[in-house]
């Protein structure tokens, strides 16, 4: 799968890239929401792995950009340092999967593999 990873924490992004690349995925990494939006405009991705708190603000802006696009966008796995979000949190309805930190490799792989065709 072609995956866009938007995560501003270098160690975590480095580890995620290593794991997903080893699993045969093509990973494009960016550290800001602005870069993520630009990449989504230019390229097609099968999945977006998105950190909720990016260096330049709320990751939900990227979700909003995907929602506003004329064509259906890729599913979003939202990684969040806020832990498990409340069931009635409206953000849970706007993304495919919530992946609360700290997650382990198995949880990451399960979240990604759910979208492998």
């Amino acid at each position, binding site marked *: 799968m072609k995956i866009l990873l938007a995560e*501003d*924490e270098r*160690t*975590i992004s*480095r*580890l*995620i890239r*290593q*794991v997903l690349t080893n699993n045969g995925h093509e990973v494009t990494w960016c550290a*800001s929401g602005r870069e993520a939006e630009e990449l989504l405009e230019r390229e097609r991705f099968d999945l977006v792995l998105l950190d909720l*708190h*990016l*260096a*330049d*603000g*709320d990751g939900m802006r990227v979700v909003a950009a995907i929602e506003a696009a004329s064509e259906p966008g890729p599913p979003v796995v939202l990684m969040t*340092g*806020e*832990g498990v979000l409340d069931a009635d949190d409206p953000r849970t309805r706007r993304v495919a999967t919530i992946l*609360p*930190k*700290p*997650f*382990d*490799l*198995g949880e*990451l792989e399960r979240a990604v593999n759910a979208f492998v065709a």
Partner: protein
Amino acid sequence: MTEEWPPEPDAETLRRETMGAFAHEIRTPLTSIRMVMELAKRSADAEGGMRLDRELAEMLAASVDDLQQLADDLQEMSRLERGKLALAPGPCDLAAAVSAAGELLGGSPAIEGEAPPAVEGPWDAGRLVRALAGLARSANRMGDGSGTVRLTCRVEPGQAVVEFASGRPGGEERPIAADAGFAFFRARQLVVAMGGSVHCERRDRFARVAAVLPLGGPGGRGGG
């Protein structure tokens, strides 16, 4: 201060947001540690022996250092709140403190702007440096995240004001919440412990954070 700032959150809200920011921030190094340990375990399972390459070991060490720093900061906050920690009042030179804060940040974010006025105050130099670095980092994080914050400093009657701003003013007012980072709440407490106050305005892709530092008190003298 003569200018208007959004009202400060009440003490209970501040406490809740501080704890929220702390909980949020420890999850990042914890995630790294969990992933590195599992990579090491997979490597051991695959090859029949433990192998942790240098890069992974360094990532692990950096994450443990981050956790240690967070624990130290939280303990310091607790001791300050209980009055169990004595500050080391100045005189402290504001320009030197701002410069040291920039060095501490290592350019992340970079601080741009005019040199602070020549002024000394009765501030704990080491803690002021860390507080200013934390406020600059928070401004960048809540603002446009460009990696550069604008510095303005001024002297008013009885106080010095150090302000960091990021992004272009405008847009809707937004709450501070967890986006500020734990560093903001820790910096705020340090400034308050020195007799000052911290003010923050946050809007879409814009933030400005100011420390108001008293010039009076033993050892302090204003100028500029």
